[in-house]
């Protein structure tokens, strides 16, 4: 084994200091040119950006759908769309947000960009597979778009049988699209696990692994263990529609509750695919902007794994009213509460990290604090829903809708924005307007709470989810909620504006604008095609803010630094020597 256990106590390594190059002329964005070079690239950073562009597109599409839904719900009866259209719109909003935005957002987009950089590797372990994952994602997306334009899908994102086996529209294309998409997720997870195991730079031991990578590692484990079950479930569902195999369809002798077990066995862990990488980002951001050693490194790292593990055992809490046995409900309820503990531990650890720190409320930190607040609400309402008797009342009402939006949007999407603003300078070498970014964050915070707080109340009062019409007493809540959604869309427009401005006219970013100790900030902004011209050597943890920056910029000059096919090794080596301080 080459790189893993290369700590100083095994073998002495001669290291030199490599200061990152400031404002590089040549970097990964301009080293290869043309659309073809982009489409065939195996560079993890570019693939990350391609994912980023794709998920932005889907976030926009599903966001517009959300606005349409909220607008329709302004009045208790039909406002401007028919019930069938409404049912398709909420199905697509959910399915696109979950499968095409949330699941790939942090792992595939941000994770792809940052994971090899944080490991000091030149790329992921299987770059071609990485590119293939992206195209599998695109093919899955095309199937979904095909489904939308050939009859649509009105089953809800859960595709419950027997409704999904019998309804009109093109459910088959949709489930097949999601089936394909699953493989993209599996392959990304596989790639990340192998990369983290085998491609760490000398000195990156397991206790110096950035917490972001612990988050991605836990996520990848869930991806490879849960997604195959979704794949087989959706394959069976596709076959149900194609051939009528009857395993889930009671009309043919099958069992619809079995489908729910299959589906939630994946989809509950999928919730953690969506949130656990967010924990990783928050750990990085809070430590960086508090300029302080992370509190409880192992507690945070292991609680991610614990959540991933327990997450596999709680799927039944989606089915408290589905007709499973009381014993099953009791066990699932009990296990559900256990998830609350590692989650709580994380929140307290982050707070403790801020204690006596040197806190700079830059945009990523603002998003991290917004995350803390909103995710805590999501967590507490999760406790509420885990309680059996209360869940009987609240199940399938707007309370659940509000709860998972607090977790998914208030948690994951805010963490995603924290990460996006945090790594943006590294990705594009440009700074964005701090002023407008803070404004957008504030508006988003207000709009989000306006949208979803009223939903807790109307849910507790009995408003069921997935309702096109509703009884008049809920109207004031719905109107308030809809206004909140409009407020949020203003924040997104501002965000689109200043990020676009940053791309086109933004100030150039230094290599380490936040003063972070993490390894990705020791590469140039934007990084060169193969990340580092040297092999980085790590002697300190990524959060050791009490040690001088010079101890974080060490490495070995590599004679073969990834350009063997260009035949210009000598030049490169010279260059990296020039870079030395």
């Amino acid at each position, binding site marked *: 084994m080459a790189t893993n256990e290369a700590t100083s106590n095994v073998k002495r390594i001669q290291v030199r200091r490599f200061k990152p190059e400031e404002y590089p002329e040549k970097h990964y964005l301009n080293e290869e040119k043309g659309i073809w070079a982009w489409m065939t690239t195996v560079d993890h950073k570019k693939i990350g950006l391609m994912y980023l562009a794709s998920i932005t597109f889907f976030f926009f599409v599903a966001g517009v759908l959300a606005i349409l839904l909220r607008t329709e719900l302004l009045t208790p009866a039909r406002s401007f769309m028919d019930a069938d259209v409404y049912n398709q719109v909420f199905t697509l909003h959910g399915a696109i947000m979950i499968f095409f935005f949330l699941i790939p957002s942090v792992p595939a987009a941000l994770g792809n960009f940052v994971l090899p950089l944080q490991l000091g590797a030149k790329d992921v372990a299987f770059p071609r597979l990485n590119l293939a994952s992206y195209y599998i994602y695109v093919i899955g997306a095309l199937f979904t778009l095909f489904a939308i334009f050939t009859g649509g899908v009105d089953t809800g994102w859960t595709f419950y049988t027997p409704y999904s086996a019998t309804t009109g529209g093109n459910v088959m294309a949709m489930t097949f699209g999601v089936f394909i998409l699953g493989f993209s997720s599996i392959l990304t997870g596989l790639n990340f696990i192998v990369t983290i195991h085998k491609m760490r730079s000398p000195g990156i031991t397991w206790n110096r692994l950035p917490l972001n990578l612990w988050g991605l590692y836990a996520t990848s484990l869930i991806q490879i263990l849960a997604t195959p079950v979704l794949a087989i479930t959706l394959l069976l569902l596709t076959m149900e529609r194609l051939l*009528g195999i009857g395993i889930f369809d009671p009309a043919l002798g099958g069992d619809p509750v079995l489908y729910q077990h299959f589906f939630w066995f994946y989809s509950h862990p999928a919730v953690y695919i969506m949130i656990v990488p967010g924990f990783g980002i928050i750990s990085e951001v809070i430590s960086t902007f508090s300029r302080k050693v992370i509190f409880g490194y192992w507690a945070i790292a292991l609680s991610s794994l614990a959540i991933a593990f327990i997450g596999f055992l709680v799927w039944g809490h989606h089915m408290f009213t589905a007709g499973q046995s009381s014993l099953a409900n009791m066990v699932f309820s009990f296990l559900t509460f256990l998830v609350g503990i590692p989650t709580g531990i994380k929140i307290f650890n982050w707070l403790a990290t801020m204690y006596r720190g040197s806190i700079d409320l830059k945009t990523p930190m603002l998003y991290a604090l917004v995350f803390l607040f909103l995710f805590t609400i999501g967590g507490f309402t999760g406790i509420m829903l885990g309680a059996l008797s209360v869940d009987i009342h609240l199940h399938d009402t707007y309370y659940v809708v509000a709860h998972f939006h607090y977790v998914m949007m208030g948690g994951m999407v805010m963490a995603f924005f924290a990460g996006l603003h945090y790594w943006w300078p590294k990705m594009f070498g440009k700074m964005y307007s701090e002023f407008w970014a803070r404004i957008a964050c504030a508006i988003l915070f207000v709009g989000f709470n306006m949208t979803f707080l009223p939903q807790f109340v109307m849910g507790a009062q009995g408003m069921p989810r997935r309702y096109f019409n509703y009884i008049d007493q809920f109207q004031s809540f719905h109107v308030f909620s809809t206004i909140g959604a409009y407020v949020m869309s203003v924040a997104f427009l501002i965000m689109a504006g200043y990020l676009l401005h940053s791309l086109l006219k933004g100030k150039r970013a230094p290599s380490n604008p936040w003063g972070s100790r993490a390894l990705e900030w020791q590469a140039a902004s934007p990084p060169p095609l*193969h990340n580092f011209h040297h092999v980085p050597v790590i002697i300190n943890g990524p959060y050791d803010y009490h040690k001088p920056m010079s101890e974080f910029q060490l490495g070995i000059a590599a004679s073969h630094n990834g350009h063997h096919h260009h035949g210009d090794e000598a030049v490169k080596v010279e260059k990296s020597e020039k870079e030395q301080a």
Partner: protein
Amino acid sequence: MAQPSVTEERLEHLKHYFIDSDQQFEASKMGMWIFLVTEILFFGGLFLAYIVYRTWYPELYLLASEELHTFWGAVNTVVLIGSSLTVAMAIRSAQLNQIKGLIINLWITIGLACVFMVIKYFEYSEKFAKGILPGAHYSYEGIAHEKANIFFSIYYMMTGLHGIHVLIGIGLMVWLVFKAKKKVFHSGYYTPVEITGLYWHLVDIIWIFLFPLLYLID
């Protein structure tokens, strides 16, 4: 090795993002193992459906499995186990730099895989002729159980998916033969042979579970 060797030559097969051959080999192997885990979970869903329905309708499985030909199932089991042996011999040949042996062993494996598929084809067509078709097209009257269609749905899903895996394996091994003829593999680099072998063993193992679960009930 504790540190990247500066003097090592960049070998033809060594990708630029790996530091040396060992790292590349270990990464590929680990990747394949993880992939096999996902495959097991993928089939695991079907095994679960099998178990659930068997618990609910044990008598159905007794009745329906009589329609399956234990003899041909057993032949196929032997065929696949044999092919696992030849694929292992192929890896051995590659390790010993015996490229000719590698190619011959791969061809034998491909041949055995084809024999498996041919037998499967005859099994399927015999059932189709009887009206034992998958899903809603099921029209066979010979089994006195209302859920007989479900047993065969599970049968077709399991053996069908397994069959697709065999076909993919055949494709991979044909590709390996071409690569081997181009002298790509040698004792220092045979990763694709090794990981295809791993995959093939899994295909074999899944069949070893399918055979008793479907054919040998009573």
